[in-house]
């Protein structure tokens, strides 16, 4: 996965939020790569730092949050230290981003055609009429019926699922090489969710686009992602191929997460639950952040947080990872 150059590389990415009561670290030393055509699923509980990581990549952290360490590389080029003016040229053009709520992601006072055309004209050297033609093709590609007639429609004239399609068309209209999708299906009906996921998957495959899919829905991850990164309290707990993460998790947290996810095949057995809650950022325990809830924790876990270790394809930040030979259930 190191050859050729990955589309997105995070190296020890760290985000800090200075507050009156000390500095919070919502993203702590996170490293991973996403190759062209690959979908990396990022999972974790609310507050685990998934969305914050996505926002850090595209440079949209809300002040006072800021990148305090590490690097973000886009196709080998460092982008986390670019001035705002140059970053604006990258947003939309090379990195597309889709947010959670399609109902509020579109400007209610502009037609979808105007919003698409404006974005295309911003990034591509085309004429106005060519931009409109591209906008129609974009809407068509994401499955908006009668795309040409819908160009003059306002966002409120679309249903939720259709609006998320419009949002995806907008994020992708300048043909970015990386897509960051932040909970793209959470606000949608279950039936629509599957359609949107299928759409995203198809677009990534067709365009050879790299994608970072942030979600807390393991079902979505299982269907879509090639690899999975599991985050806990701002740190990367485990990363690996999706099949391995689901069937043979190595980090006890991933194991707990899988065991608490309902599966159709599991019958009516009671779901296992991880005891306790994720610690608040202002109150992280010493050592491994997961140790107070971990069934395998020993003394060493309470002192030194273990960096991501192991094989390239299967890394777990744990002293006592669950062995593949162990019965994970």
């Amino acid at each position, binding site marked *: 996965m190191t050859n050729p150059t990955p589309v997105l590389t995070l190296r020890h990415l760290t985000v800090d939020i200075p507050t009156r009561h000390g500095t919070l670290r919502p993203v702590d030393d996170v490293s991973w790569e996403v190759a062209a055509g690959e979908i990396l699923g990022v999972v974790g509980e609310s507050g685990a730092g998934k969305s914050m990581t996505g926002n850090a990549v*595209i440079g*949209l952290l809300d002040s006072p949050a800021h990148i305090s360490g590490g690097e973000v590389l886009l196709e080998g080029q460092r982008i986390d230290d670019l001035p705002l003016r140059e*970053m*604006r*040229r*990258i*947003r*939309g*053009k090379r990195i*597309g*981003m889709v*947010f959670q*709520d399609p109902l*509020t*992601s*579109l*400007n*209610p*006072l*502009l037609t979808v055609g105007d919003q698409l055309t*404006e*974005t295309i004209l*911003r*990034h591509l050297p085309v004429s106005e009429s060519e931009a409109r033609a591209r906008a129609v093709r974009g809407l068509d590609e994401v499955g908006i019926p009668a795309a040409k007639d819908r160009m003059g429609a*306002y966002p*409120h004239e679309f249903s939720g699922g259709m609006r998320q399609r419009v*949002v995806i068309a*907008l*994020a992708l209209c*300048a043909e970015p090489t990386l897509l960051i999708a932040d909970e793209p299906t959470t606000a949608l009906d279950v039936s629509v969710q599957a359609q949107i996921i299928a759409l995203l998957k198809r677009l990534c495959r067709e365009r050879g686009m790299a994608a970072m899919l942030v979600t807390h829905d393991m079902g979505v991850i299982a269907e879509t992602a090639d690899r999975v990164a599991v985050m806990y309290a701002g740190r990367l707990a485990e990363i690996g191929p999706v099949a391995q993460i689901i069937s043979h998790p190595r980090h006890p947290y991933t194991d707990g997460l899988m065991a608490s996810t309902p599966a159709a095949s599991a019958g009516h057995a009671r779901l296992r639950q991880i005891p306790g809650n994720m610690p608040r950022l202002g109150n992280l325990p010493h050592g491994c952040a997961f140790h107070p809830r971990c069934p395998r924790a020993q003394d060493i876990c309470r002192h030194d947080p273990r960096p991501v270790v192991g094989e390239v394809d299967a890394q777990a930040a744990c002293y006592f990872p669950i062995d593949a030979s162990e019965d994970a259930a």
Partner: protein
Amino acid sequence: MLAYIIRRVFQSIVVLLVVGLVAFAMFRFVGDPIEQLLGQERTVQDVERLREALGLNDPFPVQYFDFLVRAVQGDFGISYRQSRPVAEIILERAPATLELALVSGLLALVVGIALGVFTAIRRDGWAANAIMSASLIGVSLPTFLIGILLIYVFGVQLRWLPTFGRGDVVDLGWWTTGFLTPSGLKSLILPSITLGLFQMTLIMRLVRSEMLEVLRQDYIRFARARGLSAKSVNFRHALKNTMVPVITVTGLQLGAIIAFAIITETVFQWPGVGLLFINAVQFVDIPVMAAYLMLISVMFVLINLIVDILYVWVDPRLRIDGRH
């Protein structure tokens, strides 16, 4: 859309009728015009004859009805004091007030929106903070005091600008304008600042708070994530979304500028309808007061109608019977 406007016009007429009724009911308490019209040397017969001639003996619903019938024909009666048709007097005075209100309104709107956007975008800058603090003065100082302060500084101490009247005006036949002469323009500066300052700070603070609200919205975040320029994000996407509340308040405030030009006109001895009204109150000149109040209510009703039409123009979600 047409049906909507017609419905609104009907509502407006009802409003006007009610305003007139209330105004007429109040005139009974402002004093007896006969006192002002006839001097000390008068007989009971004189008084009675005049009362009858002016229709003051009729019950007030009858007086009101007579007023309405004549008003729709453009006849607002004869001023008791000036013995001239009220319509003529008001038409003569209206350009002064309307020009003053126009300049004040534009000043309030343009400067108010510009400063509002600026203070919202540069939320933590020192310039924005300074403007916000200064705006408290505009909100809290009464109009007459601002006028007197301006007169003192720019008229009395610095001697830069005239302190009363309209200066030289050009008579276009149906309209007298101060826009065409240097002295007319100079005379407009102090009164229009005085009249518009409150509205300006109000609009500025409103635009600022609405902008701050809109800039937090998801669609602004998404616009930024698409790499749109700061100009497009701030003006095309954000400012337009602040317009519905701003139009509401601005509309009403523009009405207020015309209606409450009275104080500014008094301070600057501006020969407009506001000053006319004040003099009419002192002399219990009922035809002038009635015509003025009706004029102001027509103005408010018109502005509200325009505001409602603007909403629909700005926000497509309100176009109930739109396309298809």
